[in-house]
């Protein structure tokens, strides 16, 4: 397919040493009119400083309410190739592990029905395929689902749960993130495909507080691996770090948020009772420090990361919960969280916003979790006084 548009402004973005999205769209444009027109419309947007995409609509596959994000050009006569340019979300495997064969299967189907463009993984975690027409959606779904793939979540639904790579490739994982994520994806199929919530609900699972999937910043329910025992200290390894020019006082002791570490130049001591399990010291001194004892999860709720304003970080509500297959306790607990949110939220309100409006007291009472010191977000600001009418009368 011949080059269709001159793109002097986009061409600027091909200069420099790094890979360029413009180059990739141009490559796809050699085989796809959609990619060609995508380039033409984008150049026009750069020239006029206006966007020409329309969002939403009724696109989807029969029976599903999510997984396809409708996208239309507002200039269909000028750029007919992108008159429809819908996004398809494919539910990713836990930890984003693929064989090369699986990836070829996905892109071969996409070349057949779509623009040939993908940005692989969006911030949701799903595998994101960019640009197809409405009439291609059912055949795309049929082909992917016949090979064991499924659509991910979108709209007012449970979004595809995601997790870090956990024990598959990381020495810090306190829990099997991939198993938890996989089982939750199976358990919440209905909530994922049939939008019944006031707004989106995201679950992300991190193996430790380093939080590689940024659950604390993005998930309505963050499940983060933690431990109950002491941090084992290998004093020989501590000496090795000191010998190799680590300034232990500056980089570790002074950076500890609870000031529970001391170092006298030869020996490191940790007051485990004061430790908040933030993982800073362990991630910096991997050879010397190691969590021990019982492993489990901390559950935090209420974060969201909108593009412009209103960002919230997650709030600890359960400092430690033991989790093990078949994870019924975890499902039940998440079910209660969703139930309270669903009862109290207006359309387009995320869990964190509803907690801010209705109060943590109402939330904790519904989910049956007592007020605990670990839930205090800022000293002297979250007293959790659960006064009731009868208390005031006394």
């Amino acid at each position, binding site marked *: 397919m011949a080059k269709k548009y001159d793109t002097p402004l986009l061409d600027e973005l091909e200069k420099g040493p790094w890979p360029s999205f413009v180059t990739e769209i141009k490559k796809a444009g050699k085989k796809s009119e959609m990619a060609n027109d995508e380039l033409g419309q984008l150049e026009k947007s750069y020239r006029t400083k206006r966007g020409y995409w329309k969002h939403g609509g*009724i696109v989807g596959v029969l029976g599903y309410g999510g997984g396809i994000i409708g996208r239309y050009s507002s200039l269909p006569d000028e750029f007919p190739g992108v008159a429809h340019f819908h996004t398809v979300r494919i539910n990713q495997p836990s930890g984003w592990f693929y064989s090369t064969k699986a990836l070829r299967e996905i892109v071969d189907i996409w070349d057949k029905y779509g623009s040939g463009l993908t940005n692989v993984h969006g911030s949701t975690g799903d595998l994101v395929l960019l640009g197809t027409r409405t009439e291609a959606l059912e055949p795309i779904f049929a082909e992917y689902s016949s090979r064991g793939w499924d659509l991910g979540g979108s709209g*007012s639904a449970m979004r595809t749960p995601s997790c870090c790579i956990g024990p598959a490739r990381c020495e810090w994982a306190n829990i099997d993130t991939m198993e938890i994520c996989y089982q939750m994806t199976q358990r919440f199929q209905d909530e994922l495909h049939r*939008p019944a919530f006031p707004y989106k609900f995201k679950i992300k699972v991190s193996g430790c507080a380093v939080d590689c999937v940024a659950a604390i910043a993005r998930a309505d329910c963050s499940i983060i691996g933690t431990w109950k025992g002491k941090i084992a200290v290998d004093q020989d390894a501590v000496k090795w770090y000191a010998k190799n020019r680590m300034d232990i006082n500056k980089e570790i002791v002074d950076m500890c948020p609870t000031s529970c570490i001391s170092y006298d130049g030869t020996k490191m001591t940790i007051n485990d009772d004061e430790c908040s399990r933030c993982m800073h010291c362990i991630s910096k001194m991997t050879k010397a420090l190691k969590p021990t004892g019982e492993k489990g999860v901390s559950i935090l709720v209420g974060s969201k990361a909108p593009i412009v304003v209103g960002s919230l970080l997650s709030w600890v509500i359960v400092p430690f919960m033991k989790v093990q297959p078949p994870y019924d306790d975890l499902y039940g607990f998440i079910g209660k969280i969703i139930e309270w949110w669903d009862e109290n939220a207006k359309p387009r309100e995320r869990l964190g916003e509803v907690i801010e409006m209705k109060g943590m007291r109402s939330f904790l009472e519904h989910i049956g979790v007592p007020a605990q010191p670990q839930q205090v977000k800022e000293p002297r600001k979250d007293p959790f006084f659960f006064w009731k009418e009868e208390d005031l009368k006394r």
Partner: protein
Amino acid sequence: MEIDELKEKIFAFVQAAKGKKKLKEKDILNGVSAEVGVDKDVVKKAMREMIDIGRLMYSYGGGASSVEIPSEEYLREKGLIK
């Protein structure tokens, strides 16, 4: 109540809101359940069956999902009418 009769009630409920209010799934469950005195889970099952065959459909707009009566265009795209 027979399931077919319940489905007609659900359809009538959604039709009555057409052009006035975007109904969330929960609105339909609460509304129909209260109207006909049937458990919400039964209403949900009946509604899901209607969605599966294209009698109702999910729609998305303004950041929220709703349930609607499909347009002819949608039914044609899905090959449910010619």
